[in-house]
């Protein structure tokens, strides 16, 4: 094991996959010499050159469209969209082109394309640079949506994403970049579509993804220490398609469910998780399932306002207590 940051783990995956397969290349804004707006691709330009680490104009539709054209003609592109918020600019390419081309062409093509981006609040970036828009993409058939919470997952999932013949939207979290964790020295591929129990428990299931896994784990410690409640924290890791098996098995064991996410609550990932649990494990539920999410409001700038609306361990503890007392 070696200790590294989430940022370094993402970079390691890119470096390993680019070394392994010459068809892998990076394309996006400021990804070259500059090293990316979040410094994720730093050093890769020097290592792999301008041919494989490609700076583009500020043209999100052209970035995603070009990556798709490259994926359809034999390359393995990793396109970077600087902020997930900017996906609004290239939504047509993502939802009408990338997601649908295989189906529309009757299975004639594979789309081995990764779109890397980052989202999330907590740094005072305000309404257009802080969102968690994964639910949009989960809604559209044809996309795999991956959101790692730890350095180990970040590396292992990105490597799998690059080798996946289906389009993957890989969403990092800006607050996680400096968090550290252990990453195996040896190559590790973490399967897409598989959740992971990050903390076993018996009394309540908390599902979360990305940054909120850390908040859920913090809440679980408080629940154990102060309330003798053992929460099981399920890190979804891949939010589309959902790992239903792991979620259902956990709820069947605990009988209670709280879904945590940083995205807007309405029609969010939690709504989908709860719907499936209600449909498939209704008899296991001992209490109403609850959500802890961002309220349906644009994300404010001022720290006090942003903090007021973001999910946090205290809100998660409160939700758990509400259905366990």
């Amino acid at each position, binding site marked *: 094991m070696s200790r590294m940051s989430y940022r370094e783990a993402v970079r390691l995956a890119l470096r390993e996959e680019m070394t392994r397969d010459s068809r892998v290349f990076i394309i996006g804004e400021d990804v070259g010499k500059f090293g990316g707006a979040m410094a994720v691709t730093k050093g890769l330009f020097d290592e792999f050159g301008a041919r494989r680490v490609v700076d583009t104009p500020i043209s999100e539709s052209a970035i995603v469209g070009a990556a798709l054209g490259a994926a359809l003609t034999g390359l393995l592109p990793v396109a970077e969209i600087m902020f997930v918020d900017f996906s609004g600019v290239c939504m047509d390419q993502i939802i009408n082109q990338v997601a649908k081309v295989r*189906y529309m062409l009757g299975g004639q093509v594979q789309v081995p394309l990764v779109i890397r981006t980052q989202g999330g609040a907590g740094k005072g970036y305000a309404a257009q640079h802080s969102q968690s828009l994964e639910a949009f993409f989960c809604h559209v058939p044809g996309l795999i949506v991956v959101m790692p919470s730890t350095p180990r997952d970040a590396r292992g999932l990105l490597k799998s994403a690059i080798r996946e013949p*289906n389009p993957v939207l890989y969403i990092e979290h800006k607050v996680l970049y400096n968090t550290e964790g252990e990453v195996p020295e040896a190559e590790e591929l973490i399967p897409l579509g598989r959740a992971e129990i990050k903390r076993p428990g018996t009394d309540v299931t908390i599902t979360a993804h990305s940054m909120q896994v850390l908040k859920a784990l913090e809440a679980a410690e408080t629940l154990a220490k102060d309330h003798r409640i053992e929460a099981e924290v399920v890190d979804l890791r891949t939010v589309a398609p959902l790992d239903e098996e792991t979620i259902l098995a956990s709820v069947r064991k605990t009988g209670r469910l709280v879904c945590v996410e940083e995205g807007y609550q309405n029609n969010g990932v939690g709504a989908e998780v709860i719907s499936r649990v209600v449909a498939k494990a209704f008899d296991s539920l001992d209490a109403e399932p609850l959500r802890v999410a961002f309220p349906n409001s644009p994300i404010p700038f001022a720290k006090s306002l942003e903090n007021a609306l973001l999910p946090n361990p205290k809100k998660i503890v409160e939700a758990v207590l509400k259905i366990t007392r």
Partner: protein
Amino acid sequence: MSPEEGLGLYRAMLRIRRFETAVNELYLKGRIPGMSPHLYIGEEAVAASVSFFLRADDYIVSNHRGHGHCLGKGAAMDRMLAEIMGKSGGYCRGRGGSMHIADVALGNLGANGIVGAGIPIAVGAAFSIAYRGTDQVAVCYFGDAATNQGTFHEAVNMAASMGLPVLFVVENNQYGLSTHIKRTCPTECLSDKAHAYGIEHATVDGMDAEESFLAARQAVGYVRRERKPCLVEFLTYRFLGHGASDNRSYRTREEEEQWKKRSPVEGFRARLASVYGVAEARLAAVDAEVEAELAGALEFAEKSPEPSADEALRDIFTPTEAVRQAQGAGA
């Protein structure tokens, strides 16, 4: 243009004209489900000319009025017609329809239902060519109205700044559905838009088969040789409406008649005989060959069964472990 080339060009145009005429008739008879197909009648010289200079390993990206591009790149009429009729024998097994036909094995990366959306995809194919260092080219066909989309500007600029081997073919048929291009774009000549991005560009008469052919030869040759993008605007006209249900209230019948007089197919057939000395028997043989292909296509498409309902959830993803739950489960 040699007589042999001329005969090849005529054959390519006739295939499109006859195919599109048959599609129109089938639609009017209620044999084609869904939206009325967007037909290419009148614009044949463009796709026939450009395709003439493409190799099997070159790429094209088409648009909503794409049957001509598809035929030009070598697609078979039978599987095309079956697709348009929503049959299982179609290129996309009935999953795509008129606006999404492609034979990817022939380098056709697909038509597109979103105006302008294919342009960045073609640039990506050109990027891939440059990355692999081959001498292929990518061609993107789109209409006049697509040059008002952001994707046009993003993609042309990206291709220009990266120096990618892509030919942008603007088929200026004057109308974006009902709206004349002069009402939505004050640029005197649409190819001037390419000037803004510093790439080679030209505007040619797309109703003149010979002029189109020579322009296409020059443009494809330039892209293949120089490994740089280039844009050619072909001035043309769609003889029918946007779709079959379009009553064309926005233009006069007189205007249509003026353009129809310049139809590229019939006029060129006559010139092949009179100017290029192609014997009538050879022209008639081409006519007969195209009719035979069309008759076979009609029979094939009619007989091809509708896709079975259990195919509806196929091919959303390439089947992998990651998507095993999503397949068929709506996950």
